[in-house]
């Protein structure tokens, strides 16, 4: 289907089902129950899941296929966001031109930086991209404030021109982002018993874009171009002596992944029209590296998983405070309760960085293939057991 083989089609369908039913899947616990803390099915976080998924998918096209480790990809996301917000400020609140512009501008920016950085490889390439991104961040935070609004981040105001729209709505507010009138923030609520599920227009736009981006990345992975990129990673010398020019291949991969980052940035600004300079900081670039590796670099679905994982941590784990902990463990005797809270305390709430760092090290050390490898190992283990019990069990290919 869609020009994909069966395995890829199955994966695309799985991703489609997961994203389209995310409001259900991410809200497994009834509202108001103690476990509701772990629900992630609210619009902002769901949007972040898919937006960072797109970012990581794009990053993976560069890193996973060619092996070039860019430490400056956040710069493209930032540039995309700034472009989109400027579009909202100057043209209209429609997200389509904003997203198109952000993809185009970050593509150009990536072309420029990639052209220079790709003259080197290995760690030199990493340092070059890092240097460019840090320059962008430092300048955006300070001297470029007229364009970026520096520390605060670029945001909409009541006196923006918006030539195809209105500067302010009738009741004196800043208009909201929309897709031809369909407001991004509109949320449809569905209440089933004690559960409440939220269906947000913005989320579904992001989800559809994610599916398109994911589909495109499958096509790229399975195309001759994708094969060439893997060949670049494998042996550049052989590439050169096989009559293939590696430069345009790596540059094309760099620009494509830069455009993915710009797309993510544009979507982010469309969901929440503010572009902060921190989006471009090297630690933000590091974050997408972490996502990709955590999920499994070079695999199709890994980066999406990694992105979801890290964003879940950032948004859910960081909100668990001691009060919440005490509530959870209230059933225990007092002394034990305090002890358990004391033990768990450093790892949750403000300690979420620590937990993330530990998990990350564990993954790099024990699961170089990331969560996908973990899944495959479990799959194999289960299969092995099954085969023991029942030799006729159907073989299931683990999701790549």
């Amino acid at each position, binding site marked *: 289907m869609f020009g994909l083989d069966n395995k890829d089609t199955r994966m695309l369908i799985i991703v489609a089902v997961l994203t389209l039913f995310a409001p259900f899947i991410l809200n497994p616990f009834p509202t108001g129950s103690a476990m509701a803390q772990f629900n992630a099915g609210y619009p902002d976080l769901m949007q972040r899941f898919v937006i960072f998924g797109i970012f990581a998918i794009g990053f993976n096209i560069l890193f996973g296929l060619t092996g070039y480790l860019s430490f400056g990809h956040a710069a493209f996301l930032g540039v995309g966001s700034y472009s989109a917000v400027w579009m909202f400020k100057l043209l209209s609140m429609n997200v389509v031109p904003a997203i198109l512009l952000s993809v185009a501008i970050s593509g150009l920016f990536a072309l420029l930086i990639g052209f220079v950085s790709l003259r080197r490889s290995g760690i030199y390439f990493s340092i070059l991209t890092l240097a460019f991104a840090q320059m962008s961040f430092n300048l955006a935070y300070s001297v470029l404030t007229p364009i970026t609004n520096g*520390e605060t981040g670029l945001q909409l*105001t009541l006196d923006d021109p918006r030539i195809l729209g209105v500067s302010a709505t009738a009741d004196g507010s800043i208009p909201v982002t929309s897709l031809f009138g369909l407001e991004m923030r509109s949320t449809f609520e569905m209440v089933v*018993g004690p559960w409440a599920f939220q269906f947000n227009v913005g989320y579904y736009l992001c989800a559809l874009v994610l599916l398109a981006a994911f589909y495109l990345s499958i096509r790229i992975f399975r195309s001759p171009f994708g094969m060439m990129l893997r060949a670049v990673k494998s042996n550049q010398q052989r590439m050169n002596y096989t009559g293939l020019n590696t430069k345009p291949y790596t540059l094309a991969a760099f620009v494509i992944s830069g455009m993915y980052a710009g797309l993510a940035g544009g979507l982010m600004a469309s969901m929440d029209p503010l572009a902060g300079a921190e989006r471009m900081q090297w630690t933000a670039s590091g974050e997408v590296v972490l996502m990709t590796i955590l999920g499994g670099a070079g695999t199709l679905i890994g980066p999406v998983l990694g992105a979801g994982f890290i964003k879940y941590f950032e948004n859910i784990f960081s909100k668990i405070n001691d009060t919440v902990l005490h509530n959870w463990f209230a059933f225990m005797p007092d002394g034990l309760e305090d002890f358990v809270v004391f033990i768990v305390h450093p790892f949750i*709430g403000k300690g979420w960085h620590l937990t993330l760092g530990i998990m990350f090290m564990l993954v790099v050390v024990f699961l170089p293939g990331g969560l996908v490898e973990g899944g495959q190992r479990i799959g194999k283990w289960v299969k092995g057991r099954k085969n023991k019990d029942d030799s006729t069990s159907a073989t299931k290919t683990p999701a790549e």
Partner: protein
Amino acid sequence: MSKSDFSRRGVLKTGALAGTGLALPTIFTASSAAAFTNDPTGSSVTLGFNVPQTGPYADEGADELRAYRLAVEHLNGGGDGGMMNTFSSKELQGNGILGKEVKFVTGDTQTKSDAARASAKSMIEKDGAVMITGGSSSGVAIAVQGLCQEAGVIFMAGLTHSNDTTGKDKKANGFRHFFNGYMSAAALAPVLKNLYGTDRNAYHLTADYTWGWTQEESIAAATEALGWNTVEKVRTPLAATDFSSYIAPVLNSGADVLVLNHYGGNMVNSLTNAVQFGLREKVVNGKNFEIVVPLYSRLMAKGAGANVKGIHGSTNWHWSLQDEGSQAFVRSFGTKYGFPPSQAAHTVYCQTMLYADAVSRAGSFNPCAVVEALEGFEFDGLGNGKTLYRAEDHQCFKDVLVVRGKENPTSEFDLLEVVEVTPAAQVTYPADHPMFAGGALGSCNPGA
């Protein structure tokens, strides 16, 4: 097709009506149930405390959280009531807000505008918070204030000192209790004049981002009005850790006053470096060289240790104040946590009380009603003397403290001493002052 932008609490009620079991999908209309975002319909109301828990301001964030917990305890009738007893408005009864128990959720801003907005959004969308408060930097405060305006909830700013928060970036749904760069300058100028005279040459080192610029502008304007000459204004990168290369040129610049428009880690390092270079012992033009840190923070001063001795600056509040409100607050905070509160803790405690009081007076959680109740509200007993929440820009006008690093501290908390309490009248500026020009409050947004 109907929509509701940020309403969850309202939904719950409908959900309950629909009953358990397999209910029909309830598509919800804004007009029928909720008049505003996150209308608390149950027996409790949720507030969102959004403070930096990771990153360089994590300690200030932690102190803010302590104050928030204390405020919630007091609002719900626990503890000794703290400043609720000294507050001039007597609406709060210790039975929650409007009889609803106060609950709270916390989040991590990471001192990044993006992360702060994400955190605030989750509080609004997921936890049903009806008010967001907190923050320890202006960039974050402005970003979250913008978000709250769009979402239709009230934002009670925490520690934010930039003129822009209630200047060009002011919002109808946002309120600031903390003072700002202009007020620092207005409070400091007369003191500086008394101490150092009118014939001075000032050298500014300024953190190169919006807050630094507005403060530099304010201080330069105020000191130039005294007759001081501004020798040089040098911008320093936010990421700088060693300021020696910026301090070194001061030595031979002919300046006799160094103004450090830095905050947080920048302030600690630039001050430490300045003292290292012997600036405090230096004599220029026959006058003792002086250093001024316009925005002081005790938590940060601790990092600079003995280097703060004798150096002047301004602060929003200090625990050594002897008025009834301050004493009550220090007592309940100190008893609970074992050390005195910081100015960040104080301002967020006040903000929580002010919000709760405004809701009680308005009789509604509706943001527009709260805005109306807060606008032009005059109060006393919260540690800063008589205070006005000005309607035009949602800025509090109150006394500003000029403080000095103490020469002989008696304890690790006793780092600053209050030199002067500059009365509110002296730091008040017209709402259309050029330094605050360029934005509009807009109208209050109840969301939904």
